[in-house]
């Protein structure tokens, strides 16, 4: 009824994760498939895409599996396959509203490169695990296999994780469980031990840079900065794409650019806060911290003689060398700690303007400024 793209083969959207899928495909071909997998990798590294691509292989009814064109392949790509269950962390409002949950999943189906979750207050509660268990007690709808993909299991509530234990340990024979998380240390150990772990590595800066330029038509310098800031994670890089990252970087850099051993006046700090505070909200403030940290590390790297290609901000190599020479390493280290403390304060929902004010004051105040301002 509506215009569809010709091919919805999710394997083609893996962008560098093919070896991991090949590993799973080989296990399937050799009949060595585990019942529960735990995909581990940074946020945005493609764990959900990988799980769905594998689900497409399992559900595709053709020899050239996955074909990307048959009905099951299309249903997996649109997240409408009756035996595919994708559970992502969600806010209470989203969980309680089927329409909002439907919109969340539809948005992910339309753009699978964006991580399907990531906001504050998102979790997987016990009710959603119970619903999965209820589903698992029934026969699959369309075929002989069911795939349950639980994304962000590190955001499961403890009750939900406890409730999921039995399902993960002994899923019904036709059910394949794929759990995904950033780090196994944040998951109930008994849950981890019941799964076969699969590492989903980030693409790496160079590879991601090429992907951003070739597949997403992002200009080279912007792509390089995004690749460096996202730690090689495609999803995180694409999240940053919507922001004026270079503009933000330059404003943050200018605000924190204090000469060594020259204590600034309160009025000067106040002026810099006012210049930045409008842009210093929510995610932008957190990203600003990352940008500033990347810049300060670049200064250390440039001082140590590294080349532009080794920096997160290769376009600023000359400036990084100048600042690196002007500031002693201990001073750069101190400024890095100040920014890290500011980032930690923002993570604790501290007022962004207050955090910025304090960080600027500490940076400007030199080594004698008060330590531990942000300590909880």
């Amino acid at each position: 009824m509506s215009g569809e793209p010709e091919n919805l083969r999710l394997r083609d959207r893996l962008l560098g994760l093919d070896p991991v899928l090949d590993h799973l495909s080989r296990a399937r071909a050799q009949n060595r498939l585990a019942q529960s997998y735990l995909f581990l990798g940074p946020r945005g590294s493609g764990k959900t895409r990988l799980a769905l691509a594998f689900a497409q292989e399992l559900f595709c009814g053709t020899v050239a599996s996955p074909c990307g064109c048959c009905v099951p392949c299309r249903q997996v790509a649109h997240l409408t396959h009756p035996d595919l269950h994708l559970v992502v962390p969600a806010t209470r409002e989203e969980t309680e509203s089927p329409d909002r949950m439907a919109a969340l999943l539809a948005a992910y189906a339309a753009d699978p490169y964006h991580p399907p979750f990531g906001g504050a207050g998102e979790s997987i509660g016990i009710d959603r695990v119970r619903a999965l268990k209820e589903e698992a007690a029934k026969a699959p709808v369309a075929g002989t296999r069911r795939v349950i993909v639980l994304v962000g299991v590190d955001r499961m509530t403890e009750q939900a994780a406890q409730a999921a234990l039995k399902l993960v340990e002994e899923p019904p024979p036709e059910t394949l469980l794929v759990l995904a998380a950033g780090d196994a240390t944040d998951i109930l150990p008994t849950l981890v031990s019941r799964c076969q772990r699969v590492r989903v590595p980030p693409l790496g800066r160079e590879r991601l840079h090429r992907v951003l330029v070739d597949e997403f038509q992002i200009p080279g310098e912007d792509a390089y900065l995004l690749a460096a800031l996202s730690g090689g994670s495609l999803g995180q890089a694409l999240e940053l794409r919507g922001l004026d990252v270079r503009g933000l970087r330059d404003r943050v850099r200018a605000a924190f650019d204090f000469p060594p051993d020259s204590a600034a006046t309160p009025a000067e700090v106040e002026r810099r806060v006012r210049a930045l505070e409008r842009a210093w909200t929510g995610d932008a403030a957190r990203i600003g911290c990352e940008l500033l940290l990347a810049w300060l590390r670049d200064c250390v790297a440039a001082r140590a003689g590294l080349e532009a290609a080794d920096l997160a901000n290769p376009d600023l190599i000359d400036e990084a060398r100048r600042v690196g020479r002007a500031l002693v390493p201990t001073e750069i280290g101190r400024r890095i700690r100040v920014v890290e403390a500011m980032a930690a304060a923002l993570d604790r929902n501290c007022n962004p303007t207050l955090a910025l004010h304090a960080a600027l004051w500490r940076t400007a105040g030199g080594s004698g400024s008060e330590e531990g301002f942000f300590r909880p």
Partner: protein
Amino acid sequence: MKFSLVQSELYRSLQLVAGVVPTKTAAQHLTSILVEATENGELRFTGTDLDAFLVTSLHASVEQPGIAAIPARRLLEVVRELPGDVVEISSTASGISIHCGNGRFRIVGPDPQEFPPLPELNEEKIFAVSSSVLARLVAQTAYAASTDYTRPEQTAVFVHVVGGDLRFVATNGHRLAMAFHAADYPAWADVLVPTKTLAVLQRLLSEAQESVSISANKRYCLFNLGSTRLYTRLLDGPFPPYQQAIPSGCDSHADLDREVLAAALRRVTVFSESATRMVKVTIDSGRLGLAAEAHDVGEASEAVSADYEGPQFRTGFNGGYLLDLLKTMTTDRVRISFKESGAASIFEPTPLEGKPDLLCLVMPLRLQDEPARGGETVAAN
């Protein structure tokens, strides 16, 4: 796709199918009804919540065969308000067009390919049962199933054939209902049918006149009512070994008037504790005493006459459970069989002739002044 039919027939079919279409779901493609028009003039409507598929067919004037998925709620809302005239429905690239009288409506629907496929059942294990018998078997058992989804197998009714008898069994661990129909049924699969689907079946059976054919495989069970078919996804077992729970050697019986007992229970249960709904039952020669008390409500006691000669027997039951089972009986008399306090008691209708076709089992509640007995369950729900 293009077809036309009378509004009342269209509305009736849509209303029937919409009964299984979920209204609150994140799977938006399931909120549609699949409409198929075939070359031989058959019109098929399918709705599903993935647990049940309901398909109803009727004849219509099909101008162009085809298939479309139409959002159920909007379609129903529009068709309900149409004048009793011929309705013409056609699918176009931009959606579904509905023409009736001077009205023109266009509904945007999802891709019909997104709609889950209808289950495939080979009809080898198949038998027919009269719709009235099926309705009785469902009504007398489905209420007793559990609503606790941590034990999914107890949220279903166990349907099987034993020695030629068709048996429906449901339990929640504290009560059990077993209804059967004695006939020469062929050996058949043991299936666990979710009570949610049986509620849909009951609605369908209330209008059905003919016999219903039932077939099943490992995943699905099909109730074929002629022009309407209900597919239900089955639950994985195993069902608890219910036969072990039925006490043998219950040689004490009390026969009572069912209506009189139910009326007394309805009055006394009002005064029971809300958590347990406990009613104390004392069976003595010629009478059955009922008593209940709740410290914040009050107390009640009432006696009804019973055909019983023997030593006094005291126990406690969930009054709600007793009322539920008495409601499903149709006979004038009911027989209570018991062995000892602390053991389950059997409630059976006493037909004028022949054997009872229903057996209900209720676990007792422990009375406060009763010493604890090993292995007995105190039901709190």
